[in-house]
């Protein structure tokens, strides 16, 4: 459990909250609006936060509920997208790695909202399937299925099922993420 004052702890989660907002909305202006709403709501309802529980999960849940609720109110099925992923492409050490990373981001951006969200929560943020399911208000099995479908879609878009492509991708990934020892 954190010893920080909950409001100070909230501030430490803001970079991750913004990353989640950008991943979900794929639009900077919308992400920033959602984030402001979420911070305001969390700050004014801090007495409802249960110490000892996961504040990041609580904040992500507030933000995603706001996002889907505003989408429903506006009756918008399709979000405005502004290349938020390709815009944040940082300088990478290797040209091929950079291209592969761009491919990955473009493919990721094409996933359905619920699939992108599932992958970000479980694959990138490290939430358990149970926690991610609770945050999204679905059963654990549904969350597992969303993650599997999202991975299958990325596999298809990036042609990762092709052995040769995966070999090339591995070497490019090493250049980008610098992660050692991917077994062949």
């Amino acid at each position, binding site marked *: 459990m954190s010893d920080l004052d909950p409001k100070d702890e909230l501030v430490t989660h803001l*970079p991750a909250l913004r990353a989640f907002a950008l991943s979900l909305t794929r639009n900077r202006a919308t992400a920033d609006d959602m984030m402001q709403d979420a911070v305001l709501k969390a700050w004014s309802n801090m007495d409802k936060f249960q110490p000892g529980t996961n504040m990041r999960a609580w904040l992500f849940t507030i933000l995603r509920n706001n996002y889907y609720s505003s989408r429903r109110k506006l009756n918008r099925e399709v979000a405005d997208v502004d290349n938020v992923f390709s815009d944040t492409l940082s300088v990478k050490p290797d040209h091929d790695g950079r291209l592969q990373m761009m491919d990955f981001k473009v493919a990721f951006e094409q996933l359905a909202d619920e699939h992108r969200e599932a992958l970000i929560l479980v694959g990138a943020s490290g939430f358990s399937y149970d926690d991610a399911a609770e945050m999204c208000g679905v059963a654990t099995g549904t969350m597992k299925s969303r993650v*599997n479908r999202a*991975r299958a879609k990325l*596999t298809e878009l990036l042609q990762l099922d092709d052995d040769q492509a995966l070999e090339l*991708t591995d070497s490019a*990934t090493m250049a980008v993420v610098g992660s050692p020892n991917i077994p062949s």
Partner: protein
Amino acid sequence: MAGENSPKQERIDRYIDQNLKKVFSDLENDELPGEIVDLLSVLRAQDKELKEKK
């Protein structure tokens, strides 16, 4: 596609997760917008004012 738990599938899943973490980390390193920083200042000032009134 290979079976769910095949070494190939595990390799693909690992590749996807590594890239996801990199994408998320890039986004986390994006500078916080000024509006959020301003909002936090306002909220902290309001809290301070409330505390002083008590």
